[in-house]
């Protein structure tokens, strides 16, 4: 018996979310009185793999195979299922990111394992197995019982405080059986370099229609640069084409959970709040003192973002 956690890598490196995942898996393993096994697919150097052992991992399994160079959901599902069976996984933990959302549902069917997705806390109990997840796009939460023998959880980013708990984890290579063709083929990759990834960012500076024109984004970019933050925007801004749709944050755009979210000129429609309500701290700058964003915010300034942002930039520079 074990808890299996799939730790994705990015060009051979792990991220903060990888350590969140293994720590979370470690806690569930404690609740079930069993061990934690991490699975890494692709080329990752040994010293990088060993970083997982700093966060309560008992065993690390690596799979390297040319067929797994790109994410093919069927092939990855097959590999994770084979490893889950090999280690007798009772719970499989996957990140609730693009990769996790692509694989976890397939794995659920393959293993006939109930899926709890976008989970943000440890299970309420393991017997019965009850998880806590968001519903109605963050307007509510649901306690959900997973009734199957094997369970799958996708963990929301930045939702779990992780702590070091080093273990002498052994690294073991595993050869999966990959029969048949890979049916999807990546023909081109377009990467933006040097730009912070919105869903990874710890700080996000976001602008809404109150910025009045795409020409007024200078202070948002500057503040983001200064804070090491990613930039985002509200839906009307991306619909107007002022900013790309990749920046749209809200119910139908990106759902984010940074430590700090600064909303400039955003009124805070319920759909926007759905995308940002998991932020740890929200700062709102808006001319309308009755704007709903102030109900969601921790700190608020009633004023014109065009005037407040430059002052804020100055204050951050002086801190």
């Amino acid at each position, binding site marked *: 018996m074990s808890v299996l956690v799939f730790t994705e890598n*990015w060009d051979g490196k792990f991220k903060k979310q990888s350590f969140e995942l293994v720590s979370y898996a470690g806690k569930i393993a404690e609740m079930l009185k069993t061990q934690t096994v991490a699975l890494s697919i692709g080329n990752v150097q040994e010293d990088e793999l060993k970083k997982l052992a700093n966060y309560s991992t008992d065993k690390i399994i690596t799979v390297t195979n040319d067929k797994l160079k*790109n994410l093919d959901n069927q092939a990855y599902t097959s590999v994770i299922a084979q490893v889950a069976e090999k280690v007798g996984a009772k719970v499989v933990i996957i990140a609730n990111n693009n990769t996790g959302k692509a694989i976890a549902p397939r794995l659920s069917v393959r293993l006939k394992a109930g899926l709890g997705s976008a989970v943000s806390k440890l299970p309420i109990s393991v017997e019965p197995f009850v998880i806590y997840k968001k519903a*109605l796009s963050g307007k509510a939460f649901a306690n959900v019982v997973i009734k199957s023998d094997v369970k799958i959880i996708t963990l929301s980013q930045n939702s779990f405080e992780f702590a070091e708990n080093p273990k002498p984890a052994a690294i073991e290579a595993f050869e999966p059986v990959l029969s048949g063709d890979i049916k999807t083929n990546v023909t081109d990759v377009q990467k933006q370099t040097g730009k912070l990834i919105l869903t990874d960012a710890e700080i996000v500076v976001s602008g809404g229609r109150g910025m009045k024109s795409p020409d007024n984004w200078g202070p948002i970019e500057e503040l983001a640069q200064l804070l090491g933050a990613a930039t985002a925007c509200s839906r009307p801004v991306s619909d107007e084409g002022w900013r790309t749709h990749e920046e749209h944050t809200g119910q139908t755009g990106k759902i984010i959970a940074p430590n700090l979210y600064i909303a400039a000129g955003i009124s805070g429609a319920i759909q926007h709040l759905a995308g940002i309500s998991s932020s740890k701290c929200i700062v709102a700058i808006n001319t309308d003192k009755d704007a709903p964003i102030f109900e969601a915010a921790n*700190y608020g300034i009633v004023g014109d973002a065009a005037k407040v942002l430059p002052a804020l930039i100055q204050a951050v520079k002086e801190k």
Partner: protein
Amino acid sequence: MKILICLSNVPDTTTKAKFVNDNKAFDTAGVQWIINPWDELALTRALELKANAANNIEKVTVITVGKVDAEPTIRKALAIGADDAVRIDAEPKDAYFVAAQIAEYVKTNPFDIIVNGIESSDYNGSAVGGMVAEFLNIPSVSAVSTLEIANGEVKITRDIDGGKEVIKSQLPVLVVVQKGIAKEPMIAAMRGIMMAKTKPLAVVAPQAIDALTEIVSFELPKPKPPCKMIDPENVKELVHLLQNEAKVI
């Protein structure tokens, strides 16, 4: 080519969260039901593809798992332009149950491209699409922001961390689409609304399938402390609070 769009019938996105039955169910009193926003974009893209005769798309079908009260939402999809519709006559229990029902239908009524929205705005599971693909043992691509057809092949762009990948997939394929797949949802014209009344809507009996999960109860988010207001002339105070109180910068 035939395209299938999986629709979810969800409360309007402005709906306030209220619960009944010991907090076990949504309070649906007075709720406006809509096509799940991402599914609506998926339908829009399918109809855009069909409008180009070179793509040779025979029909666009919509399918949903739901009781008769889901029919106004299905009719709306027909009014927007879907050619026909299927309703599997069951109360959706969980994602596994819904996906199994859809897959069972597709096994005997095959499609070349199946499209799902990235998540439904009610249960936010992001699950049905991938599950349908696995039940059918066909490839799936998720986080898709463009879908094109050229010479009978599909070209898909998927979002990855910090970029995009262009993917060719064998058919049939299931794509899970997100923001960007279509600019704005297509709106039903008066002619479409009239025609929707006579378009075929098949009602199919469900299969006996057990759900793997069950909602025990809903909760509202914990109330947060009131917003601290800061004088716009004293922005330094905000920086001080972010550093020393919230400890986020």
